[in-house]
């Protein structure tokens, strides 16, 4: 679902050139998403999550020149994070059980990463509303940068298009356009991951 590969490459080029604003953009865009990616995989252990996220982003920055754009930057960072989670659990042995998330089930992971819908698979029945709600939030994190934030600000916090534009440092017209693209990307992503439209998913979540 990473649709901004040219932007990823440009961001990396600027970071490696020492552009401070590029570092800030990278950190602001990826740190919260990666934190949310790692936290449930480490049983909600905040300290362990901090260590793993730090190690992941440090490793990502050191290997950045090797990034070839075969996947999106966030997908690439998540792959590093998965290995860090495994290493952390092995090294610390602080977790008594290996956490397997719904996101990591082969069908779901493939759907998230390569946009293929799992067929004939009722996620709500199999995993419960809580996990499905978390998966919806994961989908938001996998949308191109700013889309997830813009959707949350608009539909959960009730912010106006003008406010969203101000927050993103863009004009009102550009914010309207971004919201339209964000809605389309979110609908498409939900259908590919869940094999159902937004209305059906909302219904299955009891909304």
């Amino acid at each position, binding site marked *: 679902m990473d649709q901004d590969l040219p932007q990823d490459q440009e961001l990396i080029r600027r*970071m*490696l*050139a*020492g552009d*401070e*604003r590029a*570092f*800030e953009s990278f*950190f*602001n865009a990826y*740190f*919260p998403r990666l*934190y*949310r990616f790692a*936290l449930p995989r480490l049983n909600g252990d*905040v300290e362990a999550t*901090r260590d793993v*996220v*730090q190690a992941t*982003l*440090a490793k990502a*920055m*050191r290997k*950045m*020149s090797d990034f070839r754009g075969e996947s999106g930057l966030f997908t690439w960072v998540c792959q590093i994070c998965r290995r860090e989670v495994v290493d952390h659990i092995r090294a610390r042995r602080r977790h008594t059980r290996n956490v397997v998330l719904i996101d990591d089930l082969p069908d779901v992971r493939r759907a998230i990463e390569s946009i293929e819908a799992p067929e004939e698979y009722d996620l709500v029945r199999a995993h419960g509303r809580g996990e499905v*709600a*978390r998966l*919806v*939030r994961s989908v*938001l*994190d996998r949308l191109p940068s700013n889309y*997830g934030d813009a*959707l*949350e600000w608009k*539909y*959960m916090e009730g912010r106006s298009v003008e406010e969203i534009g*101000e*927050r993103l*440092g863009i004009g009102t017209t550009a914010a309207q356009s971004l919201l339209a693209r964000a*809605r389309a990307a*979110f*609908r498409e992503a*939900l259908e590919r991951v869940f094999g159902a*439209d*937004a*209305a059906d*998913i*909302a219904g299955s*979540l*009891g*909304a």
Partner: protein
Amino acid sequence: MHDDDIERVLKAAGPREQPPAEIERELRESLRREWLAVVAERRGRRRTAVALAAGVMAATVGAWIAVPQITAPAPAVGTIAQVSGELRVRSGWLGRWQPGGDGRVVTEGEILATGPSARGALALAGGISARLDQDTQLRVAAADRLVIDRGAIYVDAGIESAAAAPLEIVTPTGSVRHLGTQYEVRVLDDGLRLRVREGRIEWHSGGTSATGVAGEELTIGADGSVGRGPVAIHGEAWDWAMQAAPAIDIEGLPLAGFLGWAARELGCRIEFSTQETEREAAGVILHGTVAGLPPARALEAVFATTRLRAVVLDGRILVSTRE
């Protein structure tokens, strides 16, 4: 297509969890150091490669230059964006004072001092502008922490937003953090004076804290007592910070962009006399330079080249057409 289904599914899923602010601050700084090390290492490698191509002797020198950068990359925290008069910099308390000019990189641990007729501005991470008044000395303790020993500092953290970069100003009378965006911290002989132009700031010392909002002046006594009073968000109270404002590059800039900058620097809002005037202003692209001019003078200089007129009055920039 209605957006109702999007709203329902988002509300049913609930908000995404935000990482704790403390962890975010900690990781931002540690990763910034990691990133600077990566950049320094790459530059060192590049330099070494060039040196090797030039010959054995040159390669030796190139590697010698590169080694300190690989092993101890300078933790750069910003640059000097504007200097008027003499601004001096030294690397820690044992370093030697050196002149600090425009564009000089400022690193962690360095101390900056302005003389009795000097002012300066720093461009820090996250778009923060920090301006030093005359007779000011401060130490850059970290990318997000400035320790001011004497004088005054004006901070502009950019357009108010939840994502504003964190910055702590440490003074002999407690610390100040911005929750908003434009404010002045002045060290007094017997305490501290805080003036808030936009947004909010929070002062704390030990177990005591106080919040100041836009248009408010807080006087903190050496004993921690807090006095409050009003301060105009435009006018002479902020003149020195305007004098120290970094120059704006106007070449190719729309007039609207320049007006936005001037309004922010002057603490004013923009008013057009008519919609026609606003439309005319929207079509103007600027050329040339206003380097060295403080905002009010830059405003005069720029508008003198257009068919429009700008007058600063009672916290407003009034834009009209010349008759």
